[in-house]
């Protein structure tokens, strides 16, 4: 889909992602998202924050079609996610790199195999896959750990493997759900730097996190989810009226 830019000169100007009045409720009495609207331009870097259970993960899940909206619509590159056929969902997901909050590593696969999965699925030759995976593991500080099984890794190492898998296929959109929750502060800053580097290559990034210290490092657009509503803070939380609640 990224190649599509060449053929459609207006594509670069269109927002990469549009949430338009999205409602989502798992239980009727307690909706998670109530009329959530948001437009994200190509190449933006955006934080999503909010208290536990506010709906950050839900927002991302709707995006990669693991959940369906109850009302409203989500447009990714102009296409409505909720209307994709069963067969085209995999092609949507190939354009999105996702760091899952619970990592979702395959425990009995090696680190190499876990990280290489998005490339395997594309049918790339083994050699190319291994080369690319090796590079990415270096970037997350796990060079040389490729042949260990995912189950023996520490919490932070697993998280970095999950990050490596999300970026290995150079997706157009990167969704990171609490990707630094198990990392020490130094490593968290390093990983944030990695996301910024990737962002610098033109990738759109949505970064869901609780970590206020990360939000404060550089003023970025922040979306705060709370009680089913979203507050959009274009230039970071610094000085904004939202306290530490």
């Amino acid at each position, binding site marked *: 889909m990224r190649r599509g830019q060449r053929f459609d000169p207006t594509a670069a100007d269109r927002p990469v992602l549009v949430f338009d009045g999205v409602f989502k409720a798992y239980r009727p009495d307690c909706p998670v998202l109530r009329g959530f609207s948001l437009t994200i331009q190509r190449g933006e870097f955006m934080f999503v924050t909010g208290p536990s259970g506010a709906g950050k993960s839900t927002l991302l899940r709707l995006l990669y079609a693991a959940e369906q909206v109850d009302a409203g619509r989500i447009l990714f590159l102009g296409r409505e996610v909720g209307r994709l056929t069963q067969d085209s969902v995999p092609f949507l997901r190939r354009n999105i790199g996702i760091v899952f909050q619970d990592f*979702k590593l395959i425990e009995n*696969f090696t680190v190499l195999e876990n990280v290489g999965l998005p490339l395997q699925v594309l049918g790339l030759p083994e050699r190319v896959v291994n080369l690319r995976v090796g590079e990415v593991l270096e970037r997350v500080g796990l060079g040389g750990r490729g042949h260990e099984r995912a189950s023996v890794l520490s919490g932070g190492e697993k998280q970095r493997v999950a990050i490596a898998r999300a970026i290995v296929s150079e997706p157009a959109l990167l969704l990171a759900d609490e990707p630094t929750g198990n990392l020490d502060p130094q490593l968290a800053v390093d990983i944030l730097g990695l996301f910024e580097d990737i962002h610098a290559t033109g990738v759109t990034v949505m970064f869901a996190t609780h970590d206020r210290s990360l939000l404060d490092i550089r003023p970025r657009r922040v979306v705060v989810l709370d009680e089913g509503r979203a507050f959009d803070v274009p230039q970071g939380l610094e000085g904004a009226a939202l306290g530490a609640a």
Partner: protein
Amino acid sequence: MNAFDRAFRAMRSDLEVHLLSIFSVGVAFVCLVTAMLVVVNVQHVQDRWQHIGKLSVYLNANTAPERINDLDTALRATPGVSGVRYVPSEEARRELMSDHGDDTLAALPEQAFPASLEVDTQEALTFEAREQMAKQLQILPGVESVETYANWSAKLATVFSGGVTAAAVLTLIVLGAVVSVVSSTIRMALQKRHVEVEVLKLVGATDSYVRGPFIVEGAAQGALGAVVALSLVGALYSFVRGTFEAHLTALLGVNISFLPWTLSAGLLLGGAALGAGAAYLSLRRLLVV
């Protein structure tokens, strides 16, 4: 890695469970193979009896040798008859006794064994033609009765159709058993690997990419189950054949034989198809992630 590599990897990592399931499929197939073996051999016996075209013309005890000669000549001249042999009373007794080795028969008086003319007819001769011939012979003087072995054929046909029915019922049970074993194994493999499946789908694998290895595993289980059954029954068969061949041949009149290779290959392919089908069906729910 293609579906075969992935299936192979999964089966190796779960070797024991797969071996157990192959063995279970094998046990189910053993019943089927045994039934087929019986059917195939009964079929041979039946074929032989239907084509053997033998008639026994029992003679009255006091038939004069010239009449016997006349009869012999007349029979040889009948179209469809390929040979005639005169079996006198004592010989009949000896023959029967050597066949059955039965003391009860030895106690029978000589008159129990009438002399006969054993008529061989050409194989091409139909059943009806032989019956017709028997009717005509029946009314000749000196002929006590004519045995066309229609009785035996009918009995064999009953046994045979019974065997076929049993084999059919067994086939159904075996199909059920194979499908149930394979699908429970696949379902459980799926449950065990649900994270793998979920992750694959989330990183953009198509349904067929996800399904591939499971279907290969199902097919492998079905086919290997059939192989196990064929080997088990084959081993049993060669043992039985080695030990009892002479008796069985004497009893049945034909050499017993194993399943023809086409049937064995069919079983193998059928097993594979069945396993793949069972796997496919168990995977249907997987479509939704």
